[in-house]
């Protein structure tokens, strides 16, 4: 089916939808759960070393997408994981064909794929290029052999360099993921990581402080004191150092953990922070459609089983009341460095920021965690550092 016919079909479908619902989402997320190995810090929906499940996964994915009925043109399409790049050439080709049939990409659309550095062979690069991938997000995490070993990653710094160069040959944007505050990391070591990143001149960088999540082996090792968590003050300095160095390297800080050269922000993720709606498919995938947030079963096997049996893969659904929805939009919006346009926010949610924040706003202003800047409200540097603490207060009112 020619892609350019899709918009009409979508529009036609929407006209039959209830008047309260908005337009169909213009974004889609596909979860590919396969990994060669589960890293010690990872609590995502992954299945390690079960490549045998790939055919069943693709079948189930096709079934799930068929349920969405018809095809919907999207502006952004994101393949995350797990490790989408783990798929061999043939299943990868199948994956793209299944998904692009359901979600054809608009002509200037963004197609992101998360890639593990060692997976990016010239053959795979060619396939990704053919599939129209515009953005490669490399799970680099670190350039330091010791850190990579601790994180249980299977690549080296050189693998990253090779992968970046190869990705550049076809992708419009190349992004690197980096983890800081790994066990025993020093400020100096982190500084060297940042230098190594900048040397590669990536278009985009996402950086996260390592978190010890319940249910991971890092969590239990931390509790047994086998791992040494970096102290809060050092973590703070590392985060501030990242902001300083990446900005100096020409990467604009545009979201709490994201940095981009001009024109290279991740449009798909910006949609999340704007409160936009999106489709999703795959085990554990979460979607936001017609005011409802829902999440698929996290177990790949159960997700497959349910779809095979003609059952819904969804385990949780919630539709937020206008008030809660507005608060969520506020919290997400404040993650963006530019903050929130107050008038725009009120138009969109029906609430003002001060109404939602109540007393907390005064306190935040006093503590200089937020500032009013023209018609906008945004986090200060200190606010960014404490943002998770702030959000739990927003919900107290």
């Amino acid at each position, binding site marked *: 089916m020619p892609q350019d016919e899709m918009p009409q079909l979508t529009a036609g479908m929407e006209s039959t939808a209830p008047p309260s619902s908005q337009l169909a989402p213009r974004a889609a997320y596909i979860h590919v759960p396969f990994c060669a190995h589960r890293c010690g810090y990872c609590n995502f929906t992954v299945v390690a070393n079960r490549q045998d499940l790939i055919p069943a996964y693709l079948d189930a994915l096709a079934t799930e997408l068929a349920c969405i009925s018809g095809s919907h043109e999207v502006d952004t399409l994101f393949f995350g994981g797990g490790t989408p790049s783990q798929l061999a050439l043939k299943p990868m080709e199948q994956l793209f064909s299944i998904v692009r049939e359901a979600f054809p990409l608009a002509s200037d659309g963004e197609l992101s794929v998360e890639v593990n550095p060692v997976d990016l062979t010239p053959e795979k690069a060619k396939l990704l290029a053919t599939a129209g991938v515009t953005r490669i997000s490399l799970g680099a995490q670190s350039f330091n052999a010791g850190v990579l070993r601790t994180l249980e990653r299977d690549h080296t710094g050189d693998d990253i360099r090779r992968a970046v160069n190869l990705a550049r040959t076809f992708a419009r944007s190349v992004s690197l993921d980096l983890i800081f505050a790994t066990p025993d990391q020093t400020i100096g070591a982190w500084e060297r990581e940042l230098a190594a990143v900048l040397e590669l001149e990536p278009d985009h960088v996402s950086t996260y402080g390592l978190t010890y999540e319940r249910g991971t082996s890092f969590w239990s090792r931390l509790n047994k004191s086998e791992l040494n968590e970096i102290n809060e003050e050092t973590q703070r300095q590392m*985060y501030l150092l990242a902001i300083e160095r990446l900005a100096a390297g020409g990467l604009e800080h545009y979201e709490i953990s994201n940095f981009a050269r001009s024109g290279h922000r991740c449009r798909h993720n910006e949609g*999340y*922070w704007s409160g936009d709606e999106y489709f999703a498919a795959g085990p554990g995938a979460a979607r936001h459609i017609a005011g409802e947030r829902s999440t698929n079963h996290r177990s790949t096997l159960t997700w497959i089983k349910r779809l095979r049996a003609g059952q819904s893969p969804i385990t949780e659904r919630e539709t937020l009341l206008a008030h809660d929805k507005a608060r*969520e939009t506020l919290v997400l919006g404040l993650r963006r460095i530019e903050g929130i346009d107050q008038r725009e926010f009120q138009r969109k949610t029906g609430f003002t920021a001060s109404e939602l924040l109540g007393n907390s706003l005064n306190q935040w202003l006093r503590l200089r965690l937020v500032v009013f800047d023209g018609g906008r409200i945004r986090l200060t540097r200190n606010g960014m*550092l404490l*943002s998770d603490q702030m*959000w*739990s207060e927003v919900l107290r009112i």
Partner: protein
Amino acid sequence: MPKPSDCHYIRNFSIVAHIDHGKSTLADRLLERTGAVTARESREQLLDDMQLERERGITIKARAVALRHVHNGQEYELNLIDTPGHVDFHYEVSRSLACCEGALLLVDAFQGVEAQTVANAYAALENNLEMIPVVNKIDLTHARVDEVLEEMESSLALAAEDAILCSAKTGVGTDELLEAIIERIPPPAGDANAPLQAMVFDSHYDEFRGAITYVRLMNGTIHKGQKVQFLKTGMTMDVLELGQFSPGRTPCQELRAGQVGYLICNIKSISDVHIGDTISTPGPDHGTPLEGYKPPKRMVYCGLYPADGENFEELRDALHKLSINDPSFEFQPETSDALGFGFRCGFLGLLHMEIIQQRLEREADLDLVQTAPNVTYEIATRHGGTLYITNPQDVPDTGDIEEFRQPIVQTSFVLTSDCIGPVMQLCHERRGVYLRTEYLSPTRALLVFDLPLAEVIYDMHDRLKSITRGYGTMDYELKGYFPADLVRMDILVGGKRVDALSIICHREDAERRGRAVVKKLRTEIDRHMFEVALQAAIGGRIIARETISAIRKNVTAKCYGGDISRKRKLWAKQREGKKRMKSVGNVDIPQKAFLAVLDTGQDQKS
């Protein structure tokens, strides 16, 4: 055959013992042996019918049960008046003893004479009761009967050959005990034809019948259907039902002088029944009032607040319901800046407080915030008045205080001789005044100190147990209120005084206590986005300070599509947690922190 109601064939007795020496088990055996209950009906501790009593193995309320026993062909009526063993309920013991002519002094064959054994024995002697020494648990492998008999002789002057040896568990010695009760305890004096004088020694509330009044008839006779007058209140009522407990309520037609039983008079509220009141007949020729009891004294107060302010009315109802059956507990509404609306509650002691709180949580399903317990104080003001302080918040400015007085209790410790030194040291640390040492045997001693009650309720019991490896026991009795150099210490959180955290303590202890409290609070209060100062102050003077540093970084980096719902739930959960906290200024204080003032600033593990 003479009627069993004839005084000559009645014996009224109590069992007094230290806690856990087997009083309730012995009562059960007596009930079984006299056929009041069959072994099949028998459940552990028949007389302890409050659920909590059975769970904790302690008696809280007094009970009275009439047993019938044939001795040498003659049927006798044996009225067993059970008494609580814990020091908190001491006044109930003396109440029961006033209705008896004899007492069984029960001592564990391994534990020996303990602090409450001594206290109870003295109480029985003061009431001129015939005392029968009983050594229980003689079947224990480690029983040391001879030594225990010697202890009883030397400490209480009770002759070893008078003692009955028994095992309430196996029933050995029960018959000898029944025989001793009949042979040795004198029958009650009293004239069934004299004007009516019945002593009210307890009451309980029955959902269907209203107040059930427990009486011991000193003189006269009560018939079903007659009018009686409660002399203290002047209230005249019809006797709808009367009878004895055996152990269930067993109605009869009349109760005569010397007997123990109950009256049901259509009294709707238990607060209308005054313990210690005398019941007589209405009209000019009624009997004279008997010497009553001193009302129970509330020794310990604390604030009880609903964790959720919206449950204030429910808490009030629950407290009211409990006080119906337990007049020794009182409550009054109070407000706190930190905790909102709640109640100041008065208790007989810490155990009593604990029991009431457990019953509230269990029976009313209420989540409570409790402030640290305090004793009551007297303050003579410069204007010549006297203030009775039950809440540290009510202490006036230092300038208005002429004299600050605290309750002093005479405290007896029974312990092995090797522990005398450490316990003496403990008492001196707690500003105790040494009175005397008595040796019960070459290896066990009775140590007597005057101590501030505040120090005793604080952690004395725990400290004693730890010093004596669990074997030391203590008992105390209020001596009076005496002047001391006391101050109110305030706690400031983030520069704001938290009224519910104020305590009264000795001036010399203030710094140590203050340091301990702020240190403890530092661990109880979470870090905030700003620095939180914790200070202890006397008047305007800061005597201790701790700081909770501000959170420097709390951002978990990722927040993409799948994270949004999960994070919102996490925040909502944090909000729920915070809802249970109390806010002072912008600082969230968890419920548990309000007990931080109990921290002594001393290493508890010695």
